[in-house]
């Protein structure tokens, strides 16, 4: 299983048609295709990824695209993606709040 999420970006206009109520993780990118937010839809998320992504989009105005991964391991996958982002960029995505994370040095 790949550490990083490398699927193609999807325009935000397609959120409602591409997402269902699954559990999973997602990323938001700005127009430069830089990851600016990583989130997840967990067991308490209303309408799963569809609801969580739509709700997060309302908070940020500069989101151009998103991508997602359906997984029941949303809790650990979310942390893995954040750690991989720190390994690649030395910082969390712009809109993510500070949380306690481990150190990952993926090959």
């Amino acid at each position, binding site marked *: *299983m790949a*550490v990083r999420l490398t699927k193609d970006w999807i325009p935000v206009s397609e959120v409602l048609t591409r997402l269902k109520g699954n559990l999973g993780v997602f990323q938001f990118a700005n127009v430069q295709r830089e990851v600016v937010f990583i989130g997840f839809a*967990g*067991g*308490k998320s209303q309408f799963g990824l569809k609801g969580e992504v739509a709700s997060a989009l309302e908070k940020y105005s500069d989101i151009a695209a998103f991508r997602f991964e359906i*997984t*029941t*391991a*949303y*809790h*650990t*996958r979310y*942390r*893995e993606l954040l*750690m991989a982002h720190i390994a690649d960029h030395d910082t969390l995505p712009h809109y993510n709040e500070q949380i*306690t*994370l*481990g*150190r*990952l*040095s*993926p*090959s």
Partner: protein
Amino acid sequence: MKLEMTQEQTLITGMVRKFVREEIVPLELNLDPDADELDPADRDRLIEKTKAMGLYGLGIPAEYGGPDIDLMTSTLIAIEMSQHRAGLYAPCYGTFGGAGLAQLFEATDEQKEQYLFPTLRGEKRGFFGLSEPSGGSDPARAIQTKAERDGDDWIINGGKLWISGADKADYGLVFARTDKDKGRNGVTCFIVDTDNPGFHVRRVVHTLRSAHYATELQFEDMRIPHANILGEVNKGFAIASHRLTRQRIPYAAGCLGVAIKAQEMALEYVPQRETFGAPLSSRQAIQWMLVDNEIDIKQATWITLEAAAKADNGEGFRKEAAMAKLVATEAGGRVVDRCMQMFGGLGVAKDLPLERWFREMRIRRIGEGPSEVQRHVIARELLGESLR
């Protein structure tokens, strides 16, 4: 043989039960079903409570500041502590503290200053690095990570798999082969700082236990001072083996707590839930599930408590610990499975903790030595030298 708790044990277990039900369970209502940690403010507040109860630092010997509690009482406490959603792997979310890596109680004074005492103060975290991609159940032969002497240092190359907490740790105990011809007598335990340039956490390993990940580690020319050997060269397996044996008893206790709680939930639910005009509790099929649960729980409880009693009495308890681990993990799985069946659709939903217990309980039959290895340990104890 006395089969009842002492007055002190009754008092302590009652106190822990109240703590779990009044402090932990209400917080879980607002947490993600897969959460494995509390909000830091809640955690700090509850740690103050466990300290006030005199139970903080369970597992730490009294001479190092832990509560003076025998293994029997610790086991009874562990049964109570796991009776909530995250209880199997994160009992009370760590608010009772922990012993860290118990092997460090045997460390040199310098090693204790550098690693043990900061860990007990909550300033450092450690990990236990034994299992490798080549296997975890037979570490004596499966360990391929090797350490070679180079002057006053050792150079370690290799990797570990299924390691919990290594990504957040400050140091770890890493078992490496120091003599390729000596099997279990060719393994040494090294204390390794995770800021060493040769130490890498390569990936997260996702499992059924989706609340928490394991990691895969890689060591590339990791230079470790000779002074960081824990114990003696080529004597590392005894350190690992002792830990594995003793750990089996609280491991079993955690499964028992979850099984007890699942059964309690089922007993409350089946008289209320009606099907075809009668409560579920009136159905013989349901009654038999409850009976089988009760028998599973009792059998596993007595076997686990016997193991703890033998350890407290200074008797050999390798066989009993293996039996406890084997019976409690398998019984726990059956009990949770039956309870899930009684709850029907609700049983598999994340609304109830049964769904998480079902997934995590499955791992218990593999972690800390799978059922087959426990049977092998028991057979070896029964047959002795004739089996070797």
